[in-house]
C-alpha cells in the first residue's frame, strides 16, 4: 500500500510544509487515512483525534499563509502515549481506573510540541500505567508488532513504537522508566531516546516512578530525535526536578564525525544471556563505527547484576504512593457496589487496576513497610548509587557506552506473561540507565533471520545527549543497509 507522506520523516515533512510543497492538512489527511486503513490490524491507536488534528494542521497552514515563521515541527504528525495529560480527549493510562478521564490541563511537553506547530493525531496504547514490557498489560487493546503481527511491539510505549514503525505517525511521544522507550523502539525498528533525568519536564506525565520517569520521542531517524528534543527540552517551573541548563541545538551535533570517539563495551552486556543474533548485529555495528574512526575499549559495570532487583524495589515503592490517589473519591473508577469508605477504596482499586499494577503496588507497599524499609528500599538506593558509580568510572575511559538494547528480538504474545520475572529480564540492559539518570538511545542495527528488528543501545554521561545523537547519526548514515519497511506497510 502506497501512502504519500506517511513514510517521510518529521524533518522531511517540516521542510516540505515550510517550502510549500505540501500543506499540513494534506499530510495530516494522509496519516488519518492510513490509520483508518491499517490500524485495525495493529491496534496502536486508542484515540484518533480526526477533527482536532485537522484543525491543528489548518492553523499551521494559516500561519504559513500569513507569512509568520513556522515552528520547528510545523505540520509534523505526532501521536501521544496514553499517559500524557491533554485537555483534548481522554488520558486513561490504558487503565480501567481512568477510563473516560479528561485532564484539565495540557502537560508541558504537549504545550511545547503544540508551540512548535506539531499536529497531534491522537493517543496510542501502552502497558497500564507504563508497567510492562510488551503492551500486553493494556486494559484497552492488544497492540501488534508491525513486523510480525504475532509478536509484541514491546512496552510500555508499545503503541508509540508500532505507530512509528507502521508509518501511522511520523513520531510518537513515549515515556521511559526502565526502558519503556528504548525497548519497544528496538523491537519495532525505531529510534528511541530517553533523555537525561531532568532534561524534559515531567509535568503532565502521569507518574509511574517519579525518580526514574522521563519523556522522550520514538522516531524514524536520528535527526527527528534531535529535532524533537530541541522542542521539548529545558527547565520548567512546574517541575522541580527539571534542570536549569542551556538547551543546545541538538541537530548541530549530527556532524557525521566520530573520529577518535571512545566507545566503551561493557563486558557484562556481552555474556551468554545475550542472544547470538543480537550479538552478531551489535558487533557488526561496532565495526561500522570503528571504520569511521571510533575507538573501542572494554569497560565494566560490575553492579549491573543487581539492577533489576534494585529497580523493582525503587519503582514499585514510588508507584505504590503515586498510584494511591486513584481511589474513586474525586475522579476515575469508583466501584458501584461500594457501601462505605473502606469498601470504596478496596473495591475500586481491586477492580480498577489490572494484575501487574496490583502486583507492583503490593510489592512497593511491602518494601516500604516498617521493618522492611532498611532491608529493601534503603539497600536498593545504595545499589543505585553503586550503579551510577560504575558508569562514572566507565565514562573515565570512554565517551559513550554501546551494547544491545534487548537480549532478543520481539517475542510472541503470551510468551512471557506467565512469569513476571521472565518479562522483567527483557529490560536487563536498559534499567541501569534510568537508575543512573543517564541519557540512552536505541536505534536499529539490523534484522533477525526471521525478519524482526534488532536494536543497539548507546549510553552517555548526564546531559551528553549530543554525544549519543552524533554517534547514532554517524552509524545510521553509514550502516550500509536499508532496514526496509515492516511487511504490513
Amino acid at each position, binding site marked *: 500500500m502506497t501512502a504519500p507522506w506517511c513514510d517521510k520523516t518529521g524533518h522531511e515533512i517540516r521542510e516540505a510544509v515550510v517550502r510549500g510543497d505540501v500543506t499540513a492538512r494534506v499530510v495530516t489527511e494522509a496519516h488519518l487515512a492510513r490509520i483508518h486503513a491499517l490500524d485495525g490490524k495493529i491496534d496502536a491507536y486508542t484515540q484518533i483525534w480526526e477533527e482536532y488534528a485537522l484543525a491543528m494542521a489548518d492553523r499551521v497552514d494559516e500561519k504559513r499563509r500569513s507569512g509568520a515563521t513556522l515552528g520547528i515541527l510545523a505540520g509534523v504528525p505526532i501521536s501521544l502515549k496514553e499517559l500524557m495529560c491533554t485537555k483534548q480527549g481522554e488520558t486513561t493510562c490504558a487503565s480501567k481506573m481512568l477510563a473516560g478521564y479528561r485532564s484539565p490541563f495540557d502537560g508541558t511537553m504537549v504545550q511545547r510540541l503544540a508551540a512548535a506547530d506539531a499536529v497531534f493525531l491522537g493517543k496510542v496504547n501502552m502497558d497500564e500505567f507504563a508497567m510492562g514490557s510488551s503492551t500486553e498489560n493494556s486494559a484497552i487493546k492488544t497492540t501488534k508488532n508491525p513486523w510480525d503481527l504475532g509478536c509484541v511491539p514491546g512496552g510500555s510505549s508499545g503503541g508509540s513504537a508500532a505507530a512509528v514503525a507502521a508509518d501511522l505517525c511520523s513520531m510518537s511521544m513515549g515515556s521511559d522508566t526502565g526502558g519503556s522507550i528504548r525497548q519497544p523502539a528496538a523491537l519495532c525498528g525505531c529510534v528511541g531516546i530517553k533523555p537525561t533525568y531532568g532534561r524534559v519536564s515531567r509535568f503532565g506525565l*502521569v507518574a509511574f516512578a517519579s525518580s526514574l520517569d522521563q519523556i522522550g520521542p520514538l522516531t524514524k531517524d536520528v535527526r527527528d530525535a534531535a529535532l524533537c528534543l530541541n522542542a521539548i527540552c529545558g527547565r520548567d517551573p512546574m517541575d522541580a526536578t527539571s534542570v536549569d541548563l542551556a538547551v543546545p541545538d541538538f541537530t548541530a551535533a549530527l556532524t557525521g564525525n566520530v573520529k577518535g570517539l571512545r566507545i566503551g563495551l561493557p563486558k557484562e552486556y556481552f555474556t551468554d544471556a545475550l542472544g547470538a543474533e543480537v550479538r552478531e548485529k551489535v558487533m557488526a555495528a561496532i565495526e561500522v563505527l570503528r571504520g569511521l574512526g571510533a575507538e573501542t575499549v572494554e569497560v565494566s559495570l560490575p553492579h549491573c547484576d543487581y539492577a533489576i532487583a534494585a529497580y523493582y524495589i525503587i519503582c514499585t515503592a514510588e508507584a505504590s*504512593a503515586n498510584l*494511591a490517589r486513584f481511589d474513586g473519591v474525586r475522579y476515575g473508577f469508583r466501584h458501584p457496589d461500594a457501601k462505605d469508605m473502606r469498601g470504596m477504596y478496596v473495591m475500586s482499586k481491586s477492580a480498577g487496576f489490572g494484575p501487574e499494577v496490583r502486583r507492583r503496588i503490593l510489592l512497593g507497599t511491602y518494601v516500604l513497610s516498617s521493618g522492611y524499609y532498611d532491608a529493601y528500599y534503603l539497600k536498593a538506593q545504595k545499589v543505585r548509587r553503586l550503579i551510577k558509580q560504575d558508569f562514572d568510572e566507565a565514562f573515565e575511559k570512554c565517551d559513550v557506552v554501546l551494547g544491545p538494547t534487548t537480549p532478543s528480538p520481539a517475542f510472541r504474545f503470551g510468551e512471557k506473561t506467565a512469569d513476571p520475572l521472565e518479562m522483567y529480564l527483557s529490560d536487563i540492559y536498559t534499567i541501569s540507565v534510568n537508575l543512573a539518570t543517564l541519557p540512552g538511545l536505541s536505534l536499529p542495527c539490523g534484522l533477525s533471520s526471521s525478519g524482526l528488528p534488532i536494536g543497539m543501545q548507546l549510553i552517555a554521561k548526564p546531559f551528553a545527549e549530543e554525544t549519543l545523537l552524533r554517534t547514532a547519526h554517524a552509524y545510521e548514515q553509514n550502516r550500509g543497509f536499508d532496514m526496509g519497511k515492516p511487511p504490513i506497510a
Partner: protein
Amino acid sequence: MEYEAVIGMEVHVEINSKSKVFCACGTDFHAPPNTNVCPVCLGMPGTLPVLNVDMVNKSVAAGLALGCTISRWSKMDRKNYFYPDLAKNYQISQYDLPLCHGGYMDIEVNGVEKRIGITRAHIEEDTARNTHTIGGGQSGVDFNRCGMPLLEIVTEPDIHSADEAYAYLTLLKQTLQYLEVSDCNMEEGSLRAEANISVRPKGTTALGSKTEVKNVASFSGVHKAIDFEIKRQINVIREGGAVLQETRGWDADRGVTFSQRQKESAHDYRYFPEPDLTPIVVDEAWEQRIRESLPELPQARCKRFQTTYGLSPYDAGVLTAGRPMADYYESVITAGADPKKAANWIMVDLQALLTDAKQEITDCKVAPEHIAELLTLIGDGAISGKMAKDILRDIFETGKTPKAVVEEKGLVQISDTGAVEAIVRQVAEGHPAQVEQYKGGNEKVLGFLMGQVMRASQGKANPKLAEDLLRKLLNG
C-alpha cells in the same frame, strides 16, 4: 503518692504565605468551598509539587526565633495513608531531616523562668476539610485547605503543668506574630495545638502512657483540658487502672476530655523521600540573610522598654504583647513624646477607646504623631488634660490632627495672665460672701470659686494659672 505531669506540645501553624506550599493557589481562609484549588493541590494525575520559597524563608525565620539549628540540607518525605481529605493519599511532610531542630523557648510562670526544649519544626502541607453536614447522607470535601503551608513545631516533654503549657503557647504565638509569619488565629485554624500528656510518680523518670488531646479551640481550653486530663489520669492510676494510649477530644461545654480513637499499634506511614522535590539546601548566606531580617523579639523588646523608657515590667509587658502596639508606642516616642506619659495615654485612654470600638491598634485612625502632639499641647499649657481626652476621642473618630480639632472647637486654653486675672476679679466681685468666708479661714470655698472661674471662661482658663491668681487675689 504524689504525681507529676509530663507534657509535650505539638503545634501546627499556618504560614501566612500568599500561595499554598506546592502550588500557586491563594490561601484565603474565607473563600467558598473548593475555589482555592488547582490540579496540583487536587493531586490530579500528571501534576507535580513545587516548593514555595517564601514558605522556606518564613519557616527558617520561625526556626531561628525559636533558637533552632537550621539544617543545611533537609528534604521532604511522603507520609502515606488513605483518607478522603488527602488528595494524593500521601501528605508531603518532613520525616527524619526537619528544616529546623534543637531549639528552645524561655517561658515565665509565676515569676520563675523555665526553658522548654523545641525538638523540631518542619514543613508540611495541610489536608482538606471533610464535612458531614451537606445533607442527603453524603459527606463533602473542601480542598481549599489542602496544600496550605504548615509548620509543625514539636517540644520536648519539658512541660509539667497547664500553666506552663499556656505560657508556652502564649509566647510561641506572640513570637510568631512578631515575625509576621503566621496569624496564629485559633478560631480560623491557623494555629492548632495538641498536648501529649502523661503522669508519673514524682521523682521517677520513666514515662507513663500518654494521651493526645486534640481539637481544642482556644488557649484557655487547652489549659482546662490539660488540667482535667492530669487529674483524670492520676485518678485512673490511683484507682488501680491503667491509662490507655489514645487520642482524646475536649468537650468545652462539659469541661471534660473524651476518648476519640484508640491507637491501632502505631500507624505505619511508610515514609520515604519525596522524589518529585529536590533537597532543601539553606546555606550559611541564606540563613544569615534571614537572621539579619529578624525583628526584635517580644522578650528582648519588653526588657528594652524597661531599661530605655523606664517603664514598669507590667507596662512594658502590656505594650510589647503585640508587635503592632509596641511599634505604635515607639513611633509616639520617636515623634518626641515623653515615654512614661505616652505609655499612660496609650494604655489607658487610647486602649479604652479601642476596646469600646472593638478595634485593633492597626485599625486606629490616631496617628502616633498625634499622640505626641497632644502631649505637647498639654505640656505647653495650651490645653488641659480634660480637654485632651475630649480631643483624643474626636481624633479617634475622625482622624483629624489635634491642632485642627483645637482650632475648630476653639478649645485653646486661656493662659494669658491679664485675661485670666480679669475673669478672676470679676468672679471675686460677684461673690463677696464667699470671698469673706475664705478670708475667714474656709479653704473649701476656693473650689467653688474656681468652678465659677472655669464656668465664666467656658472651661478655657488655664486651671493652674487661674488658681494661682485667685489665691493671690484672696490672700492679697
